[in-house]
């Protein structure tokens, strides 16, 4: 399909969104809750926030909710009956509006991860019903480092429609997928067809601090480097970085209720918690925080690249922005690329 391009005014865009809700779609967009910015179901398009660098929560919970019931059971007179939630699931058609391109990339990678191998009916069905309208970045802060991990501020991967704010309160848009096409079609006249434009001037430029290849190479034998311990001394071992990360996908499976009646839930989990890997025998393969911090970094920048030929990070910077101890991932990666020139392979 050839990419359709268009322009739309801010006002018309709001109209389109209002209409989306009116026809029964679920609209999810960035809104403020106190000082924080979240992706939430929106009823009033006026509440949508356009002027922000990055939301505080990633939109990953649209495909991978923080709690997902997978199964219910009931015991009755010696028999057990199961209810498969995957069979019952009927996700609403959802428009995810206003994501940053990095989040859209992340979502696509997340969906890909869950779908490969045995697959995951929950993520799959939610993803099928999700249309992602992202807005390219015109601003960035020092936490952002998408360009260093192979993502650009106007990356089109993962998005169904990519908007770029241009002059006069207008957006220049590219329709990237069939789902995007459907969205634009419904918007009718509000979208004014346009010739493909070079909008690079509007996009923020972000210095490339390092390259993915660099970081992966450096990490290849950095496992025993003392940097891990030094850099993670201030890490307090909470799960913030993993929970706000658009790509972190580790989860826990928990049963609730009683043996007579209950549900089996899938909940987010974090490799930062000491219990994550604790065996019932008391043995813990990663028993100190530096090992867990190393696992997070290695997993994203060394293990995933080894398996999937891509990084497990899109450089959105949330983990660093929200870290209570100011563990700055970008800074850390810079240190790795600069300082880990000489590493001993102990084993």
């Amino acid at each position: 399909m050839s990419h359709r391009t268009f322009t739309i005014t801010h006002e018309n865009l709001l109209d389109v969104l209002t209409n989306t809700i009116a026809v029964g779609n679920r609209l999810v967009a960035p809104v403020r809750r106190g000082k924080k910015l979240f992706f939430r179901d929106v009823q009033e398009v006026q509440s949508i926030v356009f002027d922000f660098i990055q939301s505080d929560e990633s939109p990953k919970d649209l495909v991978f909710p923080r709690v997902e019931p997978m199964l219910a059971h009931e015991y009755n007179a010696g028999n057990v009956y199961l209810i498969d939630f995957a069979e019952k699931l009927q996700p609403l058609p959802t428009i995810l509006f206003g994501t940053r391109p990095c989040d859209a990339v992340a979502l696509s990678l997340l969906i890909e991860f869950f779908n490969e191998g045995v697959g995951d009916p929950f993520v799959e069905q939610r993803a099928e019903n999700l249309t992602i309208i992202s807005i390219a970045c015109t601003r960035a802060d020092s936490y952002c480092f998408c360009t260093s991990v192979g993502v650009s501020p106007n990356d089109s991967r993962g998005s169904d429609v990519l908007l770029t704010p241009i002059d006069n309160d207008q957006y220049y848009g590219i329709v990237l997928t069939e789902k995007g096409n459907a969205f634009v079609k419904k918007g009718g006249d509000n979208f004014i067809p346009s010739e493909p434009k070079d909008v690079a001037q509007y996009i923020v430029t972000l210095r490339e601090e390092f390259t993915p290849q660099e970081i992966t190479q450096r990490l290849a034998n950095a496992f025993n480097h003392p940097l891990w311990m030094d850099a993670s001394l201030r890490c307090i071992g909470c799960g913030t970085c993993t929970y706000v990360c658009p790509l972190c996908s580790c989860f826990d499976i928990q049963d609730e209720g009683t043996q007579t009646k209950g549900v089996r839930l899938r909940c987010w989990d974090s490799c930062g918690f000491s219990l994550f890997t604790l065996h019932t025998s008391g043995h813990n393969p990663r028993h100190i925080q530096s090992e867990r911090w190393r696992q997070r970094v290695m997993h994203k920048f060394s293990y995933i690249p080894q398996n999937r030929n891509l990084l497990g990070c899109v450089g959105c910077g949330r983990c660093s922005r929200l870290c209570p101890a100011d563990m700055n991932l970008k800074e850390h990666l810079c240190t790795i690329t600069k300082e880990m020139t000489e590493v001993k392979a102990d084993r």
Partner: protein
Amino acid sequence: MKEFEPKIVAFVCNWCTYAGADLTGTSRIHYAPNVRVVRFPCTGRIDYNLIIKAFERGADGVIVSGCHPNDCHYTSGNFHARRRWIVFRTLLEYIGIDPRRIIFSWVSAAEGAKWADLVNKAVREIRELGPAKEFINMKQWYEFEKALGGFRG
């Protein structure tokens, strides 16, 4: 429509209130059947988490009762419990849960009539308050259609 029948759990100590409730029985004093008694060695043993669990699993009210001050079989379990309740009650109220749903009382082994009275009053009061809506509210998420969407805050 049938009148709302509250479900009430009573957490009582073995030595005073449980014995008091036994006396109610021995004296054949009738009272409302809505209460289920859970026996603890002492009020000091009663974990506030059990009160939360009771509500969360569907109780509309909770009675917590033990020996009168200075009468504790273990001398001071009830004093410790009282302190804990003062804080727990305040916190519940602060977080928006009606503290009237938890009824604290001292019922001695001799107060069989007081036990019956306590239960009857509790049933009447909780019936007026209606089902524990706060917890029902929190659990709405479990309703099948809503649960299907997963919980995302």
